[in-house]
């Protein structure tokens, strides 16, 4: 039951976007995010929105799933908006209340920054909704491979990430079991002062850590037994190979980048 929670909420579907090589999706999302910082006028958002909506349509992921990604950062969104509203100095003053000054420029800036954050979040959401966690780790491992030359342990990090993904549901279930066992011994996680409540998670955290450490130790031995010896000489069952559609996707992304940058200079609004 509890194990069916997927991290990043992958939405399974048969779509053009789902079938793309995950590297295209990761790189594409990264470039899309950069593009959001390449213009300073609202026209940029119209182009970005157009591009994004086409992607969403192609991915067959229902829009409501994508919008869900905004919920966790709603607080930050409002906070950033407020900061921009209050701290932007400008000429057209609309309201003056004590030391709080709200200008037209302030409102413009607030909307602009808020939109940027929203576009950023929904872009990343789409990526995680249309790519499985394992595909994501494979893509990151592949894209970061050049970093091996400056001694970054790319393969090991990717292996750690995919093992973590495998064990997260198990550890969640174990946390549930431990909590129940401590509840059965009269533990109380709900009432009491903040300090009391923080202390009350010790009987859960410690056994969880011990268990995680034991699992890690067992797993390391099992990996040794299956001839694991690091990334050297390893082949992959599902090697990432670019296909025609991926090249096309890259071209489309670059075209989009070009349009956004040019329009930022050419269009009047």
């Amino acid at each position, binding site marked *: 039951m509890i*194990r069916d929670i997927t991290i990043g909420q992958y939405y399974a579907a048969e779509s053009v976007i789902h079938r793309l090589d995950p590297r295209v999706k990761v790189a594409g999302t990264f470039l899309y995010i950069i593009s959001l910082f390449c213009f300073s006028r609202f026209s940029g958002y119209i182009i970005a929105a157009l591009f994004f909506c086409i992607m969403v349509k192609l991915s067959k992921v229902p829009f409501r799933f994508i919008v869900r990604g905004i919920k966790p950062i709603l607080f930050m969104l409002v906070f950033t908006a407020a900061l921009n509203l209050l701290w932007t100095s400008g000429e057209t003053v609309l309201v003056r209340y004590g030391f709080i000054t709200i200008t037209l420029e302030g409102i413009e800036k607030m909307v602009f920054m808020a939109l940027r954050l929203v576009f950023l979040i929904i872009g990343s959401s789409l990526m995680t909704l249309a790519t499985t*966690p*394992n595909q994501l780790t494979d893509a990151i491992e592949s894209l970061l491979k050049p970093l091996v030359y400056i001694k970054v342990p790319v393969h090991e990090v990717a292996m750690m990430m*995919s*093992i973590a*993904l*495998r064990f997260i*549901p*198990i550890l969640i279930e174990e946390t549930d079991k431990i909590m129940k066992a401590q509840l059965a011994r009269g533990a109380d996680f709900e009432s009491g002062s903040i300090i009391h409540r923080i202390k009350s998670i010790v009987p859960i955290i410690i056994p969880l850590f011990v268990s995680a450490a*034991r*699992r890690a130790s*067992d*797993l390391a*031995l*099992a*990996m*040794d*037994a*299956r*001839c*694991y*010896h690091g990334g050297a*000489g*390893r*082949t*992959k*069952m*599902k*090697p990432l190979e670019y296909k025609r559609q991926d090249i096309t996707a890259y071209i489309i992304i670059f075209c989009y980048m070009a349009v956004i940058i040019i329009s930022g200079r050419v269009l009047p609004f």
Partner: protein
Amino acid sequence: MKPFIKAEDLVHEYSRRDEEGNVIGINRALDGINIEVQAGDFIAVLGANGSGKSTFAKHLNALLVPTEGTLYVDGKDTSDHKNDLLVRQSAGMVFQNPDNQIVSSVVEEDVGFGPENMGVPSVEIWKRVEESLKNTGMYEYRKESPDHLSGGQKQRVAVAGIMAMKPKCIILDEPTAMLDPEGRKSVIKTARELNKKEKITIILITHYMEEVTIADYVYVMSSGQVRMEGTPRQVFARSEEMVKYRLEIPEVTKIALELNRKGIKIPKDILYPEELVDILLKIKSAGTAV
């Protein structure tokens, strides 16, 4: 014929350390083991916790190195680290905890983990994965997450993962200790089929006497030494000695022993209920009971 596994006076010592890391004692987990296994055998190593059987299993897979004595697996000396990968490919190991040996979140990807490590080409990996899953009866679950499988099914996936490395031998270290009766049966059945059909040498490490009835040869361990060896029948015939090795005699064998004590002439090496029933019926009709 040269034995597949040969342990000569194998000794393993663990150092016990205190909190600062100073050695405060030595634990002789293996105290001079001499065991020989021929290729194609189904061997059982029976022992209670602390008997040294799991330590022995780890030596077979070159996860541990002898303190004294030697161990040859498939002709290779396990104390030479250069042989580690070769030994582990030729004698693969399945562990006790079903969850803690599955690396991937998709069954077929986990089975391919071993061959990936060995640098097997992608196309060949898929062939091996398909074959191993079919051999262990888990092919229909290949796209599942291991979280949706029962304990017994997870262990069979682990066995498939070893089979994909094309080993000559599989060591199973207490594979059924955490399973329910159904799971236990399915794992032992899989091991038995691999032994018979694919001629894989099987070494089953266990503390359940009922599981060794299908073995070709049994070694009973206690306190780091082999205390008894023989075919299952020979070992069961000496069941009364089992209690001092902290092992439990199967109920059927207990009944045979009890009847013997009461004066009924009945063989002590009874392995199955059906056997006991047959013998009892014969005794009754022949009237040779008294």
